[in-house]
Structures are given as C-alpha cells and as structure tokens.
C-alpha cells in the first residue's frame, strides 16, 4: 500500500470518502513508511501509532454509519512540536520541556481532531522555533530527504521533511520569520504563513507573539488550502485573532486552475530581494518562472521596498525582546524539567537558574540575553523602540508595493539547502538566510512558498515566495495553484516525485550487520 503515501491529501480524501480505502489503511501505510525511513531522517520526535490507528478506526466507523464528515477526515497529519497536544508530549524541541504532556490541545489541533484528521505524531524543530536549519533542536537534527547531509530548513524542518518524504501528506507548522516557508523551499514542498490573526495561536508555544503564525505544510497548493480551511478563522481564546469571515481557500485554489487565471494579474518583483547573496541557480529559476508568468498573461513590475534592508536587524530586536519575556515561564515551578543546583541553597531563584541553564540550548540563551538587553531601561528606545519604527516603515513599503501589484514575488530563500554545520558557528549568516521571509512577518501579510525547480548547480529544490496584502490569503492560493499548474505542466511531473528514493533504514542496519 506504499502508493497511499504518494497521494496528495485531496486524492487520498477522495478514496476515503468513496470508501475505497479506509482511514486505518491510510494511517497504517503512513506509519509503516515512518518506521521505514524516519530512523534516518528524524522528522518526528514522537510517533503516536496506536492512538492514530484508534482514531482512524473511529473515523471509519463513523463513515460506515453514514456520518457526513469533513473531506479530510481520515487523512494523516504531522504536527509541529510547538503545538500543545493533550495526548502527546510537547517539547518545542527543547530539553526544558522533555516529556511534558499538556493538559489541553492548541485550538488548531482541536480543529484538526474535530475535522477527523489523524495526528501521526510531533515533528522536530529548532528549539522554541529559533533557527533556520533544525540544527538547534535539543533532540538531534532532521535530514533533508533530497540530501541527507543537508538541513531541511528551520525551524519547521521536521514538518517539511515529513511531508517531502511522504511520511504524511499534510503537516502543521509555525512561521515567525520564515519557519514554514523556508523549510518548504529547501525540501520542495508547499508552505503557507497566513495573515497574522488568520489562524489561532492559542496553544502554540510562543516565540514572538506579534510575529508568530500557524500555517499548513503540504505537497500541493490545493492540499494546503484544504488544511487552511480547517484550521483558520476566529478563535475567542486568541485576542489577536481576526473576527473576519474568510472565503474558502480550497475554492480559491480551484479557481487558480482555470484557464487564464493569471491573465492581468499584476506581479510585483521586489528589487531588494535579489542580487548579492542569492545563489545563481535560485535567481535563474526565479527569472524563468517570471517568464512563464508573462507568457500566461501576468504583468510583471519591479517594485522597491527600501526599508526591507533593515528588516533582519529590526526582526532580531523584536523577536528576542518578545521571546525573552515569553520564555520566562520556563522556570521548573509548574511544568517541565527541574534541575537542582550542584551547590548552594535550594531557593526558587537558584533552582530556576539551574533549570534554565541546563534546559535551554545556546541559541535560546543567546536570544534571551539579546532580548533582555534590548528591553532594558535606557536601551528600550534605541533598540525595541527603533525596531518598532522600522516595522511601521516596512508596513508602508508593503502598502506602496501593493498599490502597484496584486501579489509580490521573490525567491523564498536566497540559497538551496545548506550542509549541516555550515552556518552553525556564524549566527549572522544563519539569520540572513531569512532575509526574504522576515518582511511578511513584520507586516503581518500572508506568504506562501511553492517549489519552482531545482538549482542546476546542486540539483536541490528552489522555492518561489508569493505574498499578498493582509487578509488576501485567498489570492495566494489562486495565484499559487495557477503557477504550480504551469510549472508541473512544463516539467511533466510534480517536484517531489523527483526526490531521491529513500532506502528503508532496516536495510541499512542489515547491510551493516552483514559486513
């Protein structure tokens, strides 16, 4: 039943709805594939096999009883470990939360369950979503299915790798500065950061509250849209959740498949997100894609966003500042690990210090220290205050750009997947990898990454980023689906069908044993 894992969520859904395939069969096929490949890839931190099969059996029973279920009922899904799940450990990739099982579900998780999706497990990530490579996970790296010596992107490397390696057709991610889109780009999958406030953050372990947004990860634009429709919409438990009623993203994606969907669409190409620092193959595929768009009737204009230059700097003040406060609660008192100091008295202060010293990784400590400093009396105006002003300027840049264009485009990341360790010693190099994705978070606008080819020089996936005005998420799905269709028609296949076949790890083991 390997073929079941190769299906899109939409295709699998059709088989489930018509009862040609049971949810138990679909779930077992994916769990078998996880067993076969994930010891090597390590996309999952936790696999809930029994619970998934039980849930699937219940879905089958309900469908057999004639209940009308969400079309995605019975489709397996992987959940980033940043989201609270009451039946699975939730660690956010950190030692400090090792073994913690929340007493509640994040709103998006509750909505998945209500729709009948089957949670397979929790996916690896950079600790507290701080990173662009998943190398900062306290539980080891996740390997890129395209090249096991390379990073799967980050922070949501686990979700992207799980989807790209066919361990799950869908996954949830969270995107603070690109943590959904950049992993999608470097693994050849699709990832969407919705409009800020479009999807509930309740139960998503906060990195930077004003930037975080939960979103879908998938292998096609339409699949992402289906998942977006399940998780999106107002949640009274998240005060920053928008009260708007949203159009169907799935319908928007379908609209993109019609002839002439791109005709007259004004595409703004951001001048500042090109040139120096962009890998040649990335630029080449981007230029080719734009040519394809022109041929399909889109109008390309170059737009300038002069303040994007300051985006990374502003981001690395706002994010650490908010994170330093959000991560204060990890103190050993109510949940998570507790570490007593080697010497000295066991005061709460000493125990908190020892716990945080042992429980947080180096990158987390670096950002807490940066943020604490940026918020300090006497520095606030110069750092946090100035960064907020830059944020306003970037929002104005977007407003100006969107007055000339319906959507904005850039490469999703300046490079293809880099090798493990390549940027670990140089935080600035790591931070700059998110130069393309950070502006959307600072402005709260939605962004999507879809694959646009392989870079000729290394044969690795390259992502196209599409951005739309706030609340115009549907436009992303229409345009994204249209471009995806054009590209796949030109290639004659989907991007991920070209990923190297993964060898089951059991075979590695027996081969080694045979030596």
């Amino acid at each position, binding site marked *: 039943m390997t073929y079941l894992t190769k299906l899109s969520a939409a295709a699998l859904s059709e088989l489930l709805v018509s009862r040609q395939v049971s949810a138990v069969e679909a779930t077992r096929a994916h769990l078998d594939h996880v067993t076969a490949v994930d010891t090597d890839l390590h996309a999952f931190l936790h696999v809930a096999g029994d619970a998934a099969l039980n849930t699937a059996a219940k879905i089958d029973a309900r469908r057999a009883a004639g209940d009308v279920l969400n079309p995605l009922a019975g489709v397996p899904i992987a959940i980033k470990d940043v989201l609270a799940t009451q039946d699975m450990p939730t660690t956010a990739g950190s030692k400090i939360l090792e073994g*913690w099982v929340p007493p509640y579900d994040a709103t998006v998780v509750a909505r998945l369950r209500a729709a009948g999706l089957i949670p397979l497990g929790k996916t690896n990530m950079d600790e507290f979503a701080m990173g662009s490579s998943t190398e900062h996970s306290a539980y080891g790296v996740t390997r890129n299915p395209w090249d096991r010596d390379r990073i799967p992107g980050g922070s949501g490397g686990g979700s992207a790798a799980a989807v790209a390696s066919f361990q799950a057709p869908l996954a949830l991610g969270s995107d603070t500065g690109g943590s959904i889109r950049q992993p999608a780009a470097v693994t050849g999958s699709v990832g969407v950061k919705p409009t800020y406030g479009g999807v509930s953050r*309740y139960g998503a372990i906060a990195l930077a509250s004003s930037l975080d947004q939960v979103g879908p990860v998938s292998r096609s634009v339409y699949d992402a849209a289906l998942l977006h429709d399940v998780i999106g919409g107002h949640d009274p438990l998240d005060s920053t959740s928008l009260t708007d009623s949203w159009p169907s993203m799935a319908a928007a994606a379908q609209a993109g498949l019609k002839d002439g969907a791109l005709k007259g669409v004004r595409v703004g190409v951001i001048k500042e997100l090109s040139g120096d620092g962009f890998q040649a193959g990335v630029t080449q595929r981007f230029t080719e894609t734009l040519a394809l768009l022109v041929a399909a009737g889109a109008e390309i204009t170059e737009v300038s966003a002069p303040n994007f230059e300051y985006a990374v700097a502003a981001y690395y003040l706002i994010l650490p*500042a908010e994170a330093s406060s959000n991560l204060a609660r990890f103190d050993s*008192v*109510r949940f998570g690990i507790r570490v007593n100091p080697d010497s000295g008295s066991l005061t709460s*202060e000493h125990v908190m210090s020892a716990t945080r010293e042992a429980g947080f990784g180096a990158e987390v400590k670096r950002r807490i220290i940066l943020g604490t400093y940026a918020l300090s*009396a006497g520095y606030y105006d110069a750092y946090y205050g100035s960064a907020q002003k830059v944020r306003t300027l970037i929002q104005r840049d977007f407003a100006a750009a969107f007055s000339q264009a319906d959507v904005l485009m850039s490469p999703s990341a300046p490079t293809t997947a880099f090798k493990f360790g390549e940027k670990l010693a140089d935080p600035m190099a790591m931070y700059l990898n998110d130069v393309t994705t950070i502006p959307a978070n600072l402005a709260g606008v939605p962004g999507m990454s879809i694959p646009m080819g392989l870079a000729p020089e290394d044969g690795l996936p390259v992502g196209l980023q599409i951005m739309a005005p706030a609340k115009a998420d549907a436009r992303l799905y229409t345009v994204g689906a249209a471009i995806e269709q054009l590209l796949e028609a030109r290639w004659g296949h989907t991007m991920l069908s070209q990923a190297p076949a993964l060898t089951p790890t059991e075979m590695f083991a027996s081969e080694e044993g045979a030596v």
Partner: protein
Amino acid sequence: MPKAELMDFDRALELFEPVLGFEVHVELNTKTKMFCGCANEFGSGANTNTCPTCLGLPGGLPQVNKKAIESSIRLGLALGCEIAEHSRFARKNYFYPDTAKNFQTSQYDDPIAHDGSITIELESGRLVTVEIERAHMEDDAGKLTHMGGATGRIQGADYSLVDYNRGGVPLVEIVTQMIEGAEHDAPEIGKTYVAAIREIAKALGVSNARMEEGNVRCDANVSLRPRGSNVLGTRTETKNVNSLRSVERAVRYEIQRQAAVLAGGGTITQETRHWHEDTGITSAGRPKSDADDYRYFPEPDLLPMAPSRDWVEELRLTLPEPPAARRKRLQAAWGFANLEFQDVVNSDLLDAVEATVAAGASAQAARKWWTGEIARLANAAGVAADSLVTPAQLAALIELVDAGTLTDRLARQVLEGVIAGEGTPAEVVDSRGLAVVSDDGALIAAIDAALLGQPDVLAKIRDGKVQAAGAVIGAVMKAMRGQADAARVRELVLERAATIE
C-alpha cells in the same frame, strides 16, 4: 528598630516634614479572572480555579474581561480621573514563583485612568485633597505559603506551596501624587485615604472591599524632608498594610523611625519594608531603586483599547452618590449624633440601616438593632451582621415592637427565630407563641389569683405601700411566661388591689 529607639512623634514633626504617597490595590469582584474564564472566587480548593492561561502554561494566551475594564473605568471616574482614549497593557517582567508567567500583565505608559483627586475629611474637620496620578489595571499574583519554618515566613521555611487561584484576578492599582503638607495628620491621612478608596470601591460595587480578605491592599510610601530644606528625603515603601489601623500605625512608625535614623546621622535606604501587625514595626525588605528594571513593553498578545467616549459617559451615569456626600446627607436625615453615626459607619452597617429605614423603620430603632443585638449575634457567630437578617425582616420586627405586639425582650427571641430560619417575624411570633398578652381578662385572672394568694402583700398595697406590688407583678409575669407588658400589669395590679374582694 525597637520602639524605645524611635523618635518621639512630635519631636520628629518639629525636625522634619513628612511626605506621603500611597499605592492602593483594589481587587475587583468580577465573576471571572482578568484574562481567562476561571472563577474569581475566594476560598476554593488550592489551584482549582486555574487554566493554561492563568497557570502560565506554554501556549496559553490572555483574553480581556470586559467587565473588569468597565469596573476600572467606573472606579477611575469615581476618583475624578480622566479615562484614557487609548490604553494598553504592558508586561512587567520579573521572576517570582507566585507569578505564573514570570511577568505581570499590567499597564505602563497608557493607564486606563489618570489625573484625578479625592477630598477626604479628617476627624478635626480638616479637608485634604489627595491627587491621584493614575489608576491602572493588572492581574494579581498567586499565593505562596511557606512551610516548615517557625514563623510562616520565607526565612527558615523548608519549602513553599503556591496556589494560583488568585493568579490572574483583576486588580486596579491606584497611585497618588506626593502628598505634602500632611504634618501631624500624616498617619490619619493614610488611614482616611485608604478608608475612602475602600468606601468608593464598595459603593460602586466593583469590589467586595474586604481588607481582611486582601480585597484592598495598601503600600505606604513615607519620606522625611528636613525643615527648611526643599530637597525630598529618601522614601521607603511599606508593603501590604492591610487594615486601616495598620496604615495609620505604619505611617506613624516610619516617621518616627526615619526621624531617629536621620537625627542620629544615618541615611535612609530606599527599600521596601514589611509591616508586622503583631509588633507594630516595619522591617527591611528588598532594596528598591528608581532604576528597578522591569523591562516593560507593550503586551503583544492583547490589542490596545480605545474605550469609546459614549461608553465612558454611559458609565459615568451609573456612578452612585459619592460616599462622603452620602454620609453627610444620611446623618442629617437621621439626626444621629456623631458617635452614633460613626458607630454605624465603622461597623459597615450604613447600607443596612438605610435599607431598614427605607423599609419603614425609624432610624434610631434601625441603628439600635443593627449595632446592638444583631452585631452582637454576628460577632459571636463570626459572620457579617447584614448576613443574618434582611432589612425588611428587621423593619417588620421593629413594627411589631412599635405596635406593642412585642416587648424588646420578646423581640430578641423573635430575632433569634428569624435568624434560625423559622420565617418572618410575624410567623415566628405565631409559631413560638410569643405575642404580648394584652388580653386584660387573662391578666386580671392571673393578678387576682396572685393577690389572693398573698393576702399580706394585698394588705400592704392597700395601705399605700405601692412598691410591694413588685412581688405580685413578678408572680404574674412568671405565670404569663413573660408574655405580658409589665407596665400594663402594674396598672392592673394597683387597680385590682383597690377593688378585689
């Protein structure tokens, strides 16, 4: 500092001018907490009123309680404050185990209310206007209980327990401007100011305003300025002074202590101080400088608020009569002497007396019952007087006394019946058979029997020795089981003694 080393209060005032400031926390009595749906309830089992948000669990997010905003605005208006057109929450970052998120969600730059004042009247009749700098909203911390030590304090404790039921309960912190010119009245100003805040909060109905339950908590700032100097002295902040009398004592103590330190050539450390109710002294807490860095920044999980002017004006219309004005009006209407009125106010029975009068009782009778028998019973039972009977029940009881149906002594028995839940006063009178026997026939029969049974007494009465009637009256009252009007019995005894054969 032992009390013996304090400087004499009058001497301290000769050398120094006290400058005061108060931060009063008022706990709002909303049904649910400030930022989540958990019950705001005193006395529940430890950690039962909690959820991911108020426990600070990973992923928890705040939602603003609209009722708390409304109460804060009403409190701000009652303090004569401006209500901000734009207000927002800010995070006050510090680590402490009773603060689940390790930051308090408070307000910094943009408090909901600012720039108000209230005028308080001292016992001497002196009026003092206290300027209010701001009133801001924040969430309360949980409660720590230190276990294993001898004192219940953190020093010497083996471990501490924390109950987060109070964590996230809405507070309004009211901060005064510096109060100068207090002079000898400084301690009384402290007490009277806090009493006024408490009274306003109670009148608005926004807080239960019980200091003994921590609904109103006061931090008292005191500094001394040497006479002739225009430089402010270093201040101390005495935390959590939780009764009116303690506020008065703590301010007095700090004036005397600081004066002794300064006169001895010492310096005052800017610090928080703990108030010790038992010994009546303060002790050093933690150093507190103006540079204390809480790394405030706007709370990104909550949207800024913009209370509409229409809403604010609507709320202004709901404000009750200011308590000070109400007191003046009621005292005049009831004709109470100052001491009588103070007794009512201090016993927290103003509302009860007012409602009883409204139900038809005379003011004096209402006062007498509430501050007398009912207060006594409440005190014995350890409950609030107004929880025992309703003003309507008391008014009905008083009416029975006024009509002569009950004597005071019988009325006290009826009151016990009412408190015991036996029904209305009239029902208790019926069921217990307590009405005054006003049937002269029954009385005359009893009197005749008594007179004839004691011929010597009858002879004495007939001889004009009227005081001898007492023995007969006693016997009659006993025969009637107390249910007779003694005055009427006396009349009839004299009448029958003259005519009986």
